[in-house]
């Protein structure tokens, strides 16, 4: 063996180590992810082709579940529409409120931490607990309704926030937003701190107005965070479940029915596990679409 061959072998071994060691570090997370995410996801796709009650062996039915979803299921379009309404609310409200309050709070020299803590507080409350508390608050007999009646605001007291099919979805969205926007605000504050102060100073020297500062310095500076928030909000909007389940269970009628509640009802109340899996696959399709959109927007944001 020549000296050069030996050196090459040592270099190859070193290269192998360099490649292998990081892989070994990733391995636990990979195994965990494969077992708890990838395999169940593949199983969901597989079972969506079966007529399965969620317990025993299923019967292969091909695309029958998907055909039913798109041709016979009258709840599915209602659920999709409600998901889109939910998405619209969450695209606008928490992002706008979170950003505005983040700007105001980040300008506070004193007590900034206190404001952040107060606004963030609802986020640490368990969603089921918050949902139940708000359900009681919105009761026409015990909560806000009674208070309005005592104050002489009888008509307002009679409003059925959760009982009126035109209001119920937006009422639950309001409660979820009450819980969520503080989290968005914290993300924006972190992003605002990353914006270089020299850019603001330069803008001021150039005579830029507050609006110009915001539009030409702040927004580009926080663009990656903004895109991240909008996109995660979009994805979460398609998978949301907790507040609706805690407060209305999809009712009254199907006015707050969303894909997740419809999946749950099929899987756990109707013993239609196969059909619920097919709905999950469709839901996954929507989320993947949003994800692809996010990737494109992220690239554009980076160029911005």
């Amino acid at each position, binding site marked *: 063996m020549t000296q050069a061959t030996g050196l090459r072998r040592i270099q190859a071994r070193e290269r192998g180590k360099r490649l292998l060691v990081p892989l070994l570090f990733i391995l636990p997370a990979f195994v965990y992810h494969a077992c708890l995410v990838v395999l169940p996801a593949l199983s969901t796709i597989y079972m969506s082709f079966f007529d399965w009650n969620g317990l025993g062996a299923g019967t292969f039915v091909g695309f029958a579940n998907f055909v039913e979803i798109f041709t016979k299921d009258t709840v599915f379009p209602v659920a999709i529409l409600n998901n889109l309404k939910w998405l619209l609310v969450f695209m606008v409200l928490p992002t706008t409120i979170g950003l505005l309050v983040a700007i105001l709070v980040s300008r506070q020299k004193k007590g900034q931490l206190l404001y952040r803590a107060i606004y963030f507080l609802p986020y640490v409350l368990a969603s089921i607990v918050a949902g139940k508390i708000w*359900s009681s608050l919105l009761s026409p007999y015990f909560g806000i309704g009674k208070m309005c009646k005592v104050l002489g605001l009888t008509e307002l007291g009679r409003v059925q926030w959760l009982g009126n099919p035109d209001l119920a979805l937006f009422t639950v969205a309001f409660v979820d937003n009450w819980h969520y926007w503080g989290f968005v605000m914290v993300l924006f504050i972190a992003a605002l701190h990353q914006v270089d102060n020299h850019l603001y100073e330069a803008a001021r020297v150039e005579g830029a107005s507050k609006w110009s500062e915001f539009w030409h310095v702040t927004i580009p500076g926080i663009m990656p965070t903004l895109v991240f928030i909008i996109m995660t909000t979009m994805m979460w909007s398609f998978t949301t479940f907790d507040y609706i389940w805690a407060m*209305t269970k999809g009712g009254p*009628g199907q006015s707050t029915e969303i894909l997740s509640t419809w999946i749950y009802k099929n899987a756990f109340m*109707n013993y239609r596990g196969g059909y619920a899996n097919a709905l999950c696959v469709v839901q996954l399709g929507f989320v993947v679409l949003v994800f692809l959109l996010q990737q494109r927007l992220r690239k554009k944001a980076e160029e911005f």
Partner: protein
Amino acid sequence: MKKGLALFLALVLTLASATCTALAEEKAIEINWMVENISEGERAALNEYMIAPFHKEFPNIHINMLPTPDSVNVLKTQMAAGEGPVLFNLDGPTDVAELQKSGRVRDLTEYYTQYGWNDIIADWAKQTCKFDEKYYAIPKDVEAMWLWYNPTEFKENGWTVPTNYAELNATCASIAQAGLIPMAFGNGDITYSIDHWLSAVYNLYSGVTDLKAALRGEKKWTDDTLKGAITTLNELWQAGYINEKQTFSISGDDARTLFYTGAAAMKMEGSWLYPMLLSNAEVEFDIALFPKLRDDVEYALPMGLGGVWAMNANASKEEADAAAAFLNFALTRTDLHVASIENAGLLPMPIDLPVEAFSKDADPRLITMISMLNDAQANLENSGIVMWTFFPPELRTWQTSNMDKVFLGQMTVDEFCEGSQEVFDKCLADGTIPPLP
């Protein structure tokens, strides 16, 4: 020498007793029993009247009660993984049917024969647990829908307990005029609890004969008497007699509070309300039959099972034997069962429970309830049926999800009935209709 002998004997005795204890411990079987997320009071009652006396009689079997929120779904998940407790409660025969189809529940026919449960359990109740000529569950308790009312308000205002639809309307109108809620009800949290009302109107407007015929596929859900039931329920809701049309805005518990505090004069709910009323009512309460909703219909008490016991198909023979011994103890110690009903308000099992078995000091309302349940069970031809025991799950989910739409004007009564027929046809084809009494 004596000292040595004494020491030796003491050592032998200690070793012997230790060995015996170890053997006894080895023989002890632990049975996990998954129950719903029952209240503290119910847990205490089950411990006092079932588990503790059983442990006394069978020290080698340990029953470990596991109250679990959303227990049926937790159980289904555990079973899908081939796990789960030995013994568990299920909501009713519809759950048993699905578990049986998947081979998850144990065939209990041998225990029915061994312990003579065939002679103990009411026939109508055990038929609901029979699939392919085998028993897969044991009916746990009987419940029925009642009209609970506030006798103080009734007396003060000169109202009488309604016995027909016209009287119900008149009484509700008077109650509303007096500034009270006629009938408390809320399903904001549990949308499907509208099945209480659907059960009542189908039995008391359509009549048991027509309802059973519809469930056998011999009548259409669009026929006059079945459609009339939905129309009647809608009329009651639209008139504001069912919780002032605010049923979606409040939870079941909130609605109960309205009755507990006297804000509502009546409440149509099942037997399970009785122990809740005993603990929470701030006003007097009494019990009556919910009125007939059509003149030419026979009276029927809407009755069904509050749940069943079943065993895991994966349980070993030894575990199954132990669990069966426990169930047999519960079914045969009627003295303890009567005490649990009388003192803790537990629901009665579908076994022979003559009124005479209860003490003279027993609550007369309880005696009324037991007596009417006994009458209904003795006259099965005319006894009513409840949705959660005798309707296929898919039809129940469809009807309970869509009744709201009828109330809200998003669906007509005709559309509701046609939709019900469509779903029912599918259930009939799939063979998911539970056996009827």
